[in-house]
């Protein structure tokens, strides 16, 4: 299409980024923005299914959900939340830089966003690894034993309230949702980081700082969306009963 658009722009003196089927740049930008918001709406519905499942099972198996959430490391979760919020800030800085045509600012903002995003995934990997070691990953190797007989602390008392065996097995539902929800979120992060690399290469070549920055703006929306999903996931998965 690029050659097509160029041919047109020569004929009608349109800006180079204006696609041939739009009447003007304003219409193109409005359409793209509207399309992105609609896409985010589909994403909300996608995660909505998981949140519905969470709502139902948390009501049914509250003690199992509490016990499951106690095995997560709040400090790591907090730190990850901090990383993501910071990455949203650097992304917003990137949008601002592209708007005000600051090329190096844009490049460094995108690099910072990538690093923070990868940092988040790294910490998530550490958390997942621990779940594997404790047999808390749903599936054939899952074991609810540590919820019936919680490990003891230094004074010899159980670290957490023991669960009855028939409630303890429901921790598997909690961990199913934990992995499904954080996993889906991580998939969105990985896709986002892949796109960020592509944007970074193009920004380094000087694109997006010539007045046409819709792409950066819309990717910013996506990144904030992924961030917001985590803002919901963190309290729902880590902070049950900690009020």
């Amino acid at each position, binding site marked *: 299409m690029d050659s097509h658009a160029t041919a047109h722009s020569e004929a009608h003196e349109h800006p180079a980024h204006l696609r041939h089927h739009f009447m003007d740049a304003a219409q193109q930008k409005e359409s793209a923005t509207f*399309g992105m918001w609609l896409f985010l*709406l589909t994403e909300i519905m*996608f995660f909505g*299914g998981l949140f519905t*499942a969470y709502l*139902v099972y948390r009501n049914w198996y509250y003690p199992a959900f509490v016990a499951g959430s106690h095995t997560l490391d709040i400090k790591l979760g907090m730190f990850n939340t901090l990383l993501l919020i910071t990455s949203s800030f650097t992304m917003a800085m990137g949008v601002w830089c592209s708007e005000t045509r600051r090329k190096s600012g844009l490049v460094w903002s995108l690099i910072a966003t990538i690093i923070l995003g990868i940092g988040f995934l790294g910490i998530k990997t550490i958390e997942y690894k621990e779940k594997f070691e404790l047999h808390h990953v*749903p599936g054939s190797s899952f074991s609810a034993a540590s919820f019936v007989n919680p490990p003891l602390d230094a004074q010899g008392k159980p670290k957490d309230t023991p669960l009855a065996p028939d409630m303890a097995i*429901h921790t598997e539902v909690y*961990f199913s949702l934990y992995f*499904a929800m954080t996993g889906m979120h991580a998939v969105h992060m990985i896709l986002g980081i892949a796109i960020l690399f592509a944007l970074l290469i193009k920004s380094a070549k000087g694109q997006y700082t010539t007045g046409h920055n819709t792409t950066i703006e819309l990717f910013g929306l996506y990144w904030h969306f992924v961030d917001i999903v985590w803002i919901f996931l963190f309290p729902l998965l880590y902070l049950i009963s900690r009020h």
Partner: protein
Amino acid sequence: MSTLISLPDQSTARVPKKNYITNENGIMSWLLTGDHKRIAILYLISLTFFFFIGGAMAALIRLELLTPQSDLMASDTYNKVFTMHGIVMIFFFLVPSVPATLGNFLVPLMVGARDLAFPKINLLSWYLYMAGGCLALYAMITGGVDTGWTFTTPLSTHYVNTNVVTTGLAAFIAGFSSIFTGLNFIVTIHRMRAPGMTWFKMPLFLWANYAAAILMVLATPVVAIAIVLVALERTVGIGVFDPTKGGDPLLFQHLFWFYSHPAVYIMILPGMGVISEVISTFARKRVFGYSAVAFSSVAIAIFGFFVWAHHMFIMGVSNYAALVFSLLTMLVAVPSAIKIFNWTFTLYKGSITFETPMLYAFGFMGLFTIGGLTGVFLGVSGTDIHLTETYFIVAHFHFVMVGGMLMAFLSGIHFWWPKMTGRMYPEKISQLAAVVTFIGFNFTFFPQFLLGMLGMPRRYAAYPPEFQVLNVFSTAGASILGVGYLLPVLYLIWSLKYGQVAGDNPWQATGLEWQIQSPPLTENFTEIPVVTQDVYDYEWLERQKEHEVTHVG
């Protein structure tokens, strides 16, 4: 019988040399195109292919049911055949049928734009559709799947050992194709209407596709996540739907039907849009109660989101939920009836002619009404408990989907064929095909209502001998129906070369798409039109023609 068709003088008429088909040559110019019209043609070809795959499955089902014993194939095979029939027909034919072919072709033409808002995403949607379709075929060839098209848990997660994950993935991918089509339509209709094209000057085809697009965008992601969870449950063994771990299979049903009920409106609404255009054109009248018909599309879309649990009356939902969902289900009948009544009033005192699209449209109105009213039987939870999982259900949704949607699809294909190809289909034989389809359809599916009332369950290869007479009727009808579907393929292909040259506006219709050359240019409009006339304004069209005559002659 008077006729409406006005064709240019055939001895001198030529299909315009410069159009979207001749614009570029070579297979790659089609596979990498961003032109909505070419993508529509790609979809039309691939949809027809999948339709006949699904149709072949239907033929096998009907052959098996010719006799009470399961003699043609084993029960296992029968399960796979009806499952693949459902999956192919629903995900790869009915859901994309009108939106992806006629909608893709016509939405930009009708709003007066040069293309859909996102041409690359439009092309991507076709590739996703093909990827999903090929994956489904692959799953079918390498062992098939036998869960029924609903992937019901725990059957799909624990008790069958067939290609559930592959087929689920195919539906998942096809879902994204549908989301992208819907997204494109919504943005195009909101942001790309030509100057003067207000919401209430839009053809009802646009309103219908808009309503369907809302459903595509909001409902499809929910089934996507449901399929992901089923796949994770099968492969990893997570416990969201597994009762032994505390999960609830009913939750799967809720998530699945939250999409799959609105999905039937994704399938039918664009068809209703076609019928509005056809009825208006061949009755030479503005659609009666235009705004009521427009809003009824949106109302169907909105109500459609709140009725899903009527698929679950026998599955252990609470009685109170059944009561509420039963009531809401009956509410859907109101906007549907508004449409049928308004089309009927459009016909009243119209100058009706009986070209093929109109014959299919009449077929739609009759069969959809029967299908819709039997839907009310099923919406009432009392009768539903008697009729569900019987052939009554099968007959009901085939009346709506095949009698309704497929008729509308064929009506639309015939109606816009001259615009898409520049040539007319042969009128006499296509009228014959329409009549054959109607007769074949009724022979096939009406007996199934009776079978369902008598208690014949669906999804079994064998049945008690007393049901055989009606089943033989049904199978005989299906073979007539098959002829009715093969005919259009043959004569439409024939017409590509030998059909009469259609000219710009063979139906003397009012839509913007009819005011440009057939087939259109790649850029659709040389100048973006300014819309001053009202929608379905036949007097405006008459004045235009007089204007041309005085100026040209």
